[in-house]
């Protein structure tokens, strides 16, 4: 029964911990809800980003169009097309281009093992993988430079096509017939979130080496050209130079917005990034307000806890406790309650986040779960939160404690 001041404080705390439980719970609940709120916000923002980059990052897409302005004696309404030669032509003349790739397209019947489906078939080069986020699943690969150079009869499949044709079996190394020509499957697209697309999601597409595609297709012009500038900031510049160069080559006004179709995802992404930022700021504000409300609640409870012990403080002062002892006890108690509440809040939030992340995402249906069920737990946010809340709780504990220690022992003793 060797009593020391800390042990005495501890004993007193333990005997009244049922009363402190409400504060502990408030801190637990506040920590849990703020951490979850921010984890879901961050996760949503991150999933939007991932989904947005599903089409490709820093990507400019050029398609043919129809002139809307007369140019050098030529009438408007002329069809403009882009051709395979334009790839080298643009690459040589625009040094800001990092990667460039052609894409041809046709819709053909595709069959394997007695099953036949109609799917979009694309001819392209190895660079397309980088431009359009075509990541192969384990054990496979995308079309490479040799496939294109040698006109190999190989094919890269979207995961939906693979499933439609082969079911659960591994299609790699198997044969499929594209437009009555046999091809060997070399890779399957890894599942990804993709919120923007042309001719349907990549999951439904089939990719052939550009040269092999040209052998079975009689269309001379390209469906589109994909360009990635060296730096995202150069996208406008590259776009303009493409218009000028192709305008000179195919004789249209570079100011004619309809002569070429240009989809500049970099410009789009600026908008999207602003939206993501907006979501994060919004959640940050909600978090801050929640924190404030929580702090007010905790302050209130702390105050009540001290008030309730006024008489006790009077007794302690009467038998010779110094002011420091009274303040110490309340600060230690406050910090202990704070630590306990936030610790359990942290543990619960951390585990919930990781539990929720176990829910599988359905990549086919584009359900809300792909955005909602991928919360991200951020230790940084937790640390910042702990510092802010710690200061608030400390203050909410120290003021009633100081007040109590300064009180007149007589008045405290009379308090009922």
């Amino acid at each position, binding site marked *: *029964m*060797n*009593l*020391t*001041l800390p042990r*005495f404080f501890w*004993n*007193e705390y333990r*005997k*009244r911990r049922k009363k402190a439980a409400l504060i502990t719970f408030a801190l637990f609940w506040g920590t849990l809800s703020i951490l979850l709120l921010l984890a879901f916000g961050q996760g949503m923002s991150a999933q939007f980003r991932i989904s947005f980059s599903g089409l490709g990052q820093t990507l400019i897409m050029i398609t043919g169009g129809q002139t809307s302005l007369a140019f050098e004696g030529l009438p408007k309404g002329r069809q403009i097309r882009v051709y395979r030669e334009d790839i080298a032509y643009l690459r040589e003349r625009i040094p800001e281009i990092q990667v460039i790739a052609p894409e041809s397209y046709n819709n053909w019947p595709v069959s394997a093992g007695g099953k036949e489906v109609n799917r979009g078939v694309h001819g392209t080069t190895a660079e397309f993988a980088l431009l359009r986020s075509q990541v192969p699943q384990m054990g496979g690969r995308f079309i490479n430079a040799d496939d294109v150079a040698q006109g190999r009869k190989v094919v890269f499949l979207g995961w939906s096509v693979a499933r439609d044709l082969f079911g659960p079996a591994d299609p790699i190394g198997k044969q499929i017939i594209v437009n009555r020509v046999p091809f060997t499957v070399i890779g399957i697209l890894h599942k990804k979130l993709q919120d923007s697309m042309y001719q349907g999601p990549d999951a439904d597409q089939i990719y052939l080496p550009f040269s092999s595609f040209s052998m079975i297709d009689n269309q001379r012009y390209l469906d589109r050209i994909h360009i990635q500038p060296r730096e995202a900031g150069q996208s406008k510049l590259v776009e303009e130079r493409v218009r000028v160069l192709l305008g000179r080559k195919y004789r249209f006004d570079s100011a004619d917005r309809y002569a070429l179709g240009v989809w500049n995802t970099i410009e789009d992404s600026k908008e999207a990034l602003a939206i993501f930022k907006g979501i994060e700021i919004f959640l940050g504000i909600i978090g801050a307000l929640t924190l404030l409300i929580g702090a007010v609640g905790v302050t209130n409870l702390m105050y009540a806890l001290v008030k309730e012990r006024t*008489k*006790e403080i*009077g*007794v*302690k*002062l*009467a*038998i*010779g*406790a*110094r*002011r*420091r*002892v009274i303040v110490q006890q309340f600060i230690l108690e406050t910090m202990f309650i704070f630590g306990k509440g936030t610790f359990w809040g942290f543990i619960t939030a951390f585990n919930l986040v990781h539990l929720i992340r176990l829910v599988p995402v359905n990549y086919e249906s584009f359900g809300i779960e792909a955005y909602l069920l991928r919360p991200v737990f951020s230790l940084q946010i937790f640390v910042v939160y702990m510092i802010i809340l710690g200061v608030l709780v400390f203050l909410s504990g120290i003021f009633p404690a100081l007040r109590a220690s*300064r009180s*007149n*022992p*007589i008045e405290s*003793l009379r308090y009922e």
Partner: protein
Amino acid sequence: MIELQGIKKIYRMGSQSLEALRGVSLRVKKGEFISIMGPSGSGKSTLMNIIGCLDTPTAGDYTLDNDRVAGLSFDQLAAVRNRKIGFVFQNFNLLPYATAWENVELPMLFNGKSARRRKERVTQILNAVGLYDWRGHRPTELSGGQQQRIALARALANDPPILLADEPTGNLDSRSGEEIMDILTELWKGGRTIVMVTHNDHISARSQRIVRLFDGLVLP
């Protein structure tokens, strides 16, 4: 031992002021046992609080054990209360969440006595008031008389020369009251100075001297 000279205490409540003590002078010699008596509102408790260093006078001089009390800081007053004065209150004022043992030990904890000395002392005083076997119980588990005996033990923990008792038997049945008075008398015989506030003539008869207060003044 205790010397009060022209003590005044004025309470201010807004524009109203109440003069609780209007110039009280009192000397209590070392080893004396006095009772302070008087009707409600005569200033008994105020005087007691000033003697006990729980409150400071508005005017007048107070010397305790040859030290002037005026001008001491909050913590210095706390130290005086801790070492020189033991309090016994009418309503015991024990800490509800602490055991009997802890309640008695606390004043020693506040002045940093070693664990060994605390243990010895608590054992000794709890035995003296006959409640050693109740040391693990909380105040709510004890009778009024037992609680007051624990409060007395607490008051004696630091072996103070002065014991202040504010209606020590006021909340007790007559038998428990007698027991408490027996202990107080014992302590006085042991050399302690005792100042007691009471309404009860039977109780005050146990003291050496009776000081009567009326309307903030000592009656001659």
